[in-house]
């Protein structure tokens, strides 16, 4: 067993893990943060996307020991207290989810997309950048709308502050 320490959703956390433990297993099985999901075993579906040091990572492709010393953000840590993150709000407002299973990964991917590409995202850009996330319920139509609206909303406070 190896002892690792991560800052998880803003809180210092430590755990003893087997070297073969995946980050997603650490989150779900050891730390009981079950919002991050597992939908495949080939890193194709993106249901397990979390942020590690601010970058979207499929938590099934990273060993827990590799996360030692990092900042990890999961869907549970995205909202500020009771205030939903604008991207979460946009998924609800635009019906960007049905069964909800792919949703945490979609939202974490979308937030990362904004960080990389800005708040003004075209439909084509969004579709291209959802390449790593599968949804079987929505046909992506409303996810695309939600990501676009959520991105705009993420830009709005910054724009307001700049004025």
């Amino acid at each position, binding site marked *: 067993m190896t002892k690792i320490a991560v800052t998880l959703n803003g809180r210092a956390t430590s755990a003893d893990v087997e070297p073969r433990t995946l980050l997603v297993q650490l989150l779900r099985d050891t730390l009981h943060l079950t919002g991050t999901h597992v939908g495949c075993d080939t890193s194709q579906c993106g249901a397990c996307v979390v942020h590690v040091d601010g970058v979207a990572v499929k938590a099934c492709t990273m060993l827990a020991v590799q996360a030692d010393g990092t900042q990890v953000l999961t*869907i549970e840590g995205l909202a500020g207290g009771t205030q939903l993150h604008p991207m*979460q709000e946009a998924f609800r407002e635009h019906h960007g989810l049905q069964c*909800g299973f792919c949703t945490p990964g979609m*939202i974490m991917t979308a937030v990362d997309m904004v960080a990389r590409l800005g708040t003004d995202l075209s*439909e084509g850009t*969004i579709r291209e950048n959802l390449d790593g996330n599968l949804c079987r319920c929505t046909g992506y139509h409303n*996810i695309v709308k939600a990501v676009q609206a959520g991105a705009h909303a993420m830009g709005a406070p910054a724009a307001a502050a700049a004025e």
Partner: protein
Amino acid sequence: MTASIVTPIGASVRRKEDHRFITGKGRYTDDMARPGQAHAYFLRSPVAHANIRSLDTSAAAAMPGVVGILTGADLAADGVGDLICGWMIHSVDGTPMRMGSHPALAKGKVRYVGDHVAVVIAETLNQAKDAAAAIVVDYDVLPAVAETGRARAADAPQLHEVAPGNTAFSWELGDAAATDAAFAQAAHVIPLDLVNNRLAPNPIEPRAAIGEYDSGDDAFTLWTTSQNPHLARLVLSAFVGLAPEHKLRVIAPDVGGGFGSKIFIYAEETVCTWAAKKVGRPVKWTSDRSEAFLSDAHGRDHITRAELAVNGEGKILGFRVKTTANMGAYLSTFASAIPTYLYATLLSGQYDIPAIHCHVDAVYTNTAPVDAYRGAGRPEATFLVERIVEIAARTLGMDGAEFRRRNFITSFPHQTPVIMAYDAGDYAASLDKALAMADYAGFPARKAAAAAKGKLRGIGLSNYIEACGIAPSAAVGSLGAGVGLWESAEVRVNPTGNVEVLTGSHSHGQGHETTFAQLVSSRLGIPIDQVSIVHGDTDKVQFGMGTYGSRSGAVGMSAIFKALDKVEAKAKKIAAHMLEASEGDIEFKDGRFTVAGTDRGLAFAEVALNAYVAHKFPTSEIEPGLKEGAFYDPTNFTFPAGCHVCEVEVDPDTGETQIVQFVAVDDFGVVINPMIVEGQVHGGIAQGVGQALLEAVHYDGDGQLVTGSFMDYTMPRAENLPSFKVGLTETRCPSNPLGIKGCGEAGAIAAPPAVINALTDALGTEDIPMPATPARLWQIIQARRAVAQAAE
């Protein structure tokens, strides 16, 4: 309370359930951890067909962390029954279908890759996997047959002794003589051979199960990814024999999509429940995606030869169909109903066809079982009807829309030659609206513009119909169903006026917590946040038939509606006493009980409180409390129908298809929440486009699954799809009190022929198989170019 805070039917209210899903607080089966739970791993057959000469678990049992290893011999010793198929089909010769034995763990023989050989239960999943690798199985490998078209060949390996020729049943529907007579009158006979490709349902949440046994109460609990927990309990109790119903609680918590694949009662949840008592620990199993490809029931997989008889004016006279349907290695829970009563009964489409005959051979192969997948039989029927109708129009030199219009059923009710009596519809209305939304008239100019860019453009129509609202119990009983298909509801009004609704429907993405609450809110005049919907737990909901076949609105909500009638009736009696008026003078509107013609009235919550306080009415005449239940059995199937239009552009140099527009116009009857309904349409279209362009399950000649992961099986991604243009028309459904037809499967049913009709239009050949991948299209384009060049 006023009407303004009520959420009416027809409002796109945002979903109540979303908050937990967008914050990571959903509770899916794999999110549960029971105290002391052990982990199950299934050793699966690596070969498609074999006798098991020997099975040695002794070394594995000694591995670290192993709690127990169980095999088919243990099942037999405990008298655990086989998995069943719950729909009896009789062959043409009157004999019952030939059901091969389907044990939850193999008893001496395996019949497909992924078949269950043994289960290892250990402290951790990795320990279970390690131990499974140490089990020694001596397989006497037998020849296998995986291809649908080879199953009945004289030299094909035989799967079940009870089913000679690998034939589960040879079944027919319709009037063969009348159909022959129609063909004798035909000016044109349009032949069509087609394959409906096998699909993997692939909800993103894999199946999972946790079995638990409480020795104190001698009772079991099963948490599982089910679309119908009560049906699971019934089968596990009455047929598999694990426990009496009152000693088995089945909980289907949040379920991450199903699309049919989570209707069925599988080996894994059976074994986890049984094993929990054997090992004295909760036993948890979660499928990984590779296992899902191997062992979730697949969908479709038909080979069909059909002919359409048409007269000189383009009127359809008759339709003759011969289909071979692949059932896989065993008959899954509802497998036999899919290529029969959910398929052949829809072969009339939206058209007035005087004579139809359909013959179906259902065959066993060394592949995973095949059962309902979104649409379940109806996509197969629609693909056939809408392809052959389109080819007929083209053969006669007629516009496809005009040919369809000429054959539409226009008066209702309409009795088809294949059982169904359509109750209401306006097929021209949805066609007209779809053509307008797609600018059908402008297509020739767009095709010419595309050609100028070197692109091949095509447009395709699909005028689908489906039978939903499954289903009148007596009707399905007469057709072989082992269950009735009514639904139940219980409305519990609390003393403070808020309401809990217990429903036998199950939500796994459909938004019932919102739409069902919308119904209650609008009916009782209380805010939607005062209503909660309880489902998915056999200890809470007495009984129910679950969610599939777009039945939750038409049947499930009708049961709630009926229970609300009773609530209102009782509340009126109580209100009459409180208001000292006669019961007949009490009116209920906008959440208030009033005395007709006066300003005297009471809010719903005041009456609710009084129902429990019981001070102001004679309890000798009216029982205290306000809780009513109802069972609702529909009077007919419902018949959603519509028109989908797909326009494609194909790059002849790469074979790549771009869907440049997809228009869907659907008649779902009354719509409760348009936002949710549109979402259902979007998702269905994506699965239909997936079938048409991307998806196919492939087994090789030895029965090895070639498409066993998301690396090999192409799921639609965001980039493969356009934004959809969705519209509605409405004819109220007369067969249920709410006028609902159902919307869950329309997209998956309508889309494949729309896409293929567009592609065949673009490429100028009818011979385009599904999935129409770039490689296939490129080959077709190259072959046609070569032929054209040779002719020059």
